[in-house]
């Protein structure tokens, strides 16, 4: 097979030429910036990893595909590199959905060793398509035991998608605050509600899953139809809904009810969570099938479950640690605890029908909005 080799050589030469043209700035990110710790240049990563003493053993690079919200304190990453001997490289193709697509698209020739940031229902898809290799860390926290998917996807953190409300608005306007999900379909509340599209946003998708669980196969369409016909706003993304339309958000919009997270009031203490509407989200990590460095990916998955990482997750990634033995930050404890007994759809069943449900939802929304 000399031809592919030649093509690769040619490409490498072209890439080198391109790199040479771009000078040294790409290949040598400035050492001062926080970004260099897990920088994509192995040299930079190694340099920052060897701050105090030399790593135990240099075992090369481990590449992890993450969603674009991945962030951990520098010292934690440095410690991982120090203790494991791997240099950590992360690439982020976009949100959680983009991560899953990229894993599936490059299934036969994985471009990374591990993956982090996959949501519950997608975790089932990766396992079903055998894109991930079996691995479960030995010392899994008790609270994570039941969440493991197919012995291959390890839960790392979790959260809840909930409607948030602006109590001040309700007080000012003399309207009673809604207390359960079903009330939102009433015209009185529907016109006060901003949701995000299940097609383009992850909280929207979680809400769709929750309504299929709550109202059943034949009931969810009715809830959404009432909501949309009642005048609810459908935004493309969380920031459109929360930052522009929500009266309790930065844009001081017109809608006192918005689809958001149980954690949001930690940052906006004057807002509240509509507890009855909450539905869980879990984020997973796993080792990719056919990875070049499966041991490195396993070490990364184990690292994500260590107490220090678990404790850092709320402040850096806005999620709750999967290990419920780890304490939450004070403002989270006070304003944004996880809701007991959320609406819990079956992720595997939902994932199997996801595309069909989304297309049904799209048709419904286009019909209501187009009329």
């Amino acid at each position, binding site marked *: 097979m000399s031809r592919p080799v030649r093509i690769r050589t040619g490409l490498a030469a072209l890439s080198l030429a391109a790199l040479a043209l771009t000078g040294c700035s790409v290949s040598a990110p400035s050492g001062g910036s926080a970004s260099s710790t897990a920088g994509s240049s192995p040299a930079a990563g190694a340099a920052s990893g060897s701050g105090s003493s030399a790593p135990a053993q240099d075992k090369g690079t481990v590449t992890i595909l993450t969603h674009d919200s991945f962030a951990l304190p520098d010292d934690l990453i440095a410690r991982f590199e120090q203790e494991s001997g791997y240099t950590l490289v*992360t690439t982020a193709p976009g949100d959680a959905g983009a991560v899953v697509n990229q894993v599936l698209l490059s299934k036969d020739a994985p471009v990374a060793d591990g993956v982090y940031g996959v949501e519950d229902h997608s975790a089932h898809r990766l396992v079903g398509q055998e894109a991930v290799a079996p691995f479960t860390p030995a010392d899994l926290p008790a609270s994570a035991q039941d969440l493991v998917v197919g012995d291959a996807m390890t839960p790392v953190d979790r959260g809840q998608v909930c409607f948030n409300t602006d109590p001040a608005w309700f007080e000012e306007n003399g309207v009673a605050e809604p207390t359960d999900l079903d009330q939102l379909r009433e015209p009185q509340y529907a016109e006060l509600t901003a949701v995000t599209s299940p097609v383009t946003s992850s909280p929207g998708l979680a809400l769709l899953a929750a309504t299929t669980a709550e109202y059943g196969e034949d009931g969810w369409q009715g809830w959404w139809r009432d909501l949309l016909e009642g005048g609810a706003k459908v935004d493309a993304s969380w920031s459109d809904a929360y930052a522009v339309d929500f009266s309790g958000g930065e844009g001081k919009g017109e809608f006192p009810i918005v689809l958001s997270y149980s954690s949001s009031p930690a940052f906006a203490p004057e807002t509240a969570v509509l507890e009855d509407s909450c539905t869980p989200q879990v984020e997973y990590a796993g080792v990719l099938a056919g990875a070049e460095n499966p041991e490195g990916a396993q070490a990364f998955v184990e690292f994500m479950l260590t107490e220090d990482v678990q404790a850092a997750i709320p402040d850096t990634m806005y999620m709750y640690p999967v290990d419920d033995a780890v304490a939450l930050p004070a403002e989270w404890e006070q304003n944004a605890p996880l809701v007991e007994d959320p609406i819990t759809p079956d992720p595997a069943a939902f994932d199997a029908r996801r595309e069909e449900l989304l297309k049904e939802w799209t048709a419904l929304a286009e019909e209501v909005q187009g009329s």
Partner: protein
Amino acid sequence: MPSPATTTPARPPRRRPAGAGAGAGWAAAGVVPVAFLLVFFAWPVAAMLWRGVAGVDAAGDPTGALDLNAFAEVLGRERTWRILGQTLGMAAAGTVASVALGLPAAFVLHRRAFPGRKLLRAVVLVPFVLPTVVVGVAFRALLAPGGPFGWTGLDQTTAAVVLAMVFFNVSVVVRQVGALWSALDSRQAEAARTLGASPARAFRTVTLPQLAPALAGAAALVFLFCASAFGIVQTLGRPGYGTLESEIWVQTAVYLDLRTAAVFSTLQLAVVLAAVALSGVTAARARRALRLGTAPLRPLTRADALPAAATALTGALVLAPLAALVIRSFRSPEGWGLRNYALLATSPGTGFAGGVTPLEALEQSARTALDATVLTLAVSVPLALLLTRPFRSGAARTAQRALDGALLLPLGVSAVTVGFGFVVSLRVQVPELAASGALVPIAQAVVAVPLAVRALVPVLAAVDPRLREAARTLGAGPARVLATVDGPFLLRGVGLAAGFAFAVSLGEFGATSFLAAADRPTLPVLIARLLGRPGADNYGMALAAATVLAVLSAGVMLACERLRPREAGSGGI
């Protein structure tokens, strides 16, 4: 050899034309830039399309045959044609409105003198380089019920999307048409006036036809931008008003249904090719010997009331969202002040301890943009020279026109297709390159090259070919002609092209968000992240950072204005 078509029936055998050897040299000069575009644009797109049409057997293994069943199925749906109609309708409306507002603005900003003209010129260009995520929020803050323009009822309507398209693209018309207009000899229009034509008639019958090449080119660019608009359609439109681009995104990113995506991509490609061809035909028909000179700027007078009003409207459309953005950036939980700006240097955002600060992201952006600029110039300069050579052979001129049209494709093809295409082609075949982070400036360069070439071509095309002839009769060889005649013009154009490339790269969001490492975000990516998290400081910082980005882009553009070629006209006498 040139075509043997001739008016003389019995002519001696043709000799080699002078300069036939130069063609080979130019072909060689084109190899590297064309290879760059083939590898970093054509290959990823083709790889994506191939996945959509490659047949598979029952076990899911490729059969090597074409499977076009998806085409029949998707093209048979009424919804597909509605989406195509919506795309064309919105893009056409955006293009018409951009031209209608851009044409008078080009006149006022490039032919009339008034205080603040240069600043206004730069400001009009700012939206073009702002990330859509910022513009979406700024626009919606204006139009949302309760916002300053909430009374218009435009929020989440097609009209809002079209307005945003104009906001983004009016600068393309102003710049391209204005550049030609400022060099247009005004005496022909004056001659028409002495022959009894009213100002309107003189404009319609003399000036407009002269502007037609630039107008056709600008309209084609705007149409491509509008037809492939994604962020603003998602943010400002509403469900049910999808376009080809948003449908490609949904099919690819949400359903991973590459077969359906390939059908929509093919439709998009057809639209793009049709637009490029139409613009090419119009421009070719309109191409004529233009008499270029240096027209003196006249002061703005009462006679210019109509274009001035249109320019004011354009200015307002551009300034209102920008102003809303800037004003809001000074508000924080502690009241009005510079708090949001102070946080840019010190805070990575609330509850975002592991991230980078906006200042660090800006550094990353600037470094990436610098790389992208160098790459863009390395590719664009040979291409622009190649496109403006007065080749004598018909085949060479046909090749020139084909290349010129093909260069527009990166602007019209879905960023999603290109982005995922990078994953299935480059990431798999050259993982070292993907890991090095170099894909980000490369992807930005692919977007910037068509614009940079379009900044260079008019400057080089304005070099009177007889200047080169004069140099040759004085004993200058091809290399010396290039260096001493084209060179000085090129230098001025290069400044402009570099500024464009740098600014576009600074604001680029689509491809960058796809390819950037999570821990090394550029400023637009970080702004999007800050907007995606709750907390007053995050929102304030996002707006402050967007303001910094806008000011920086305006600064780069203002500097480029100074580098605009002044003497790119006739021989100077």
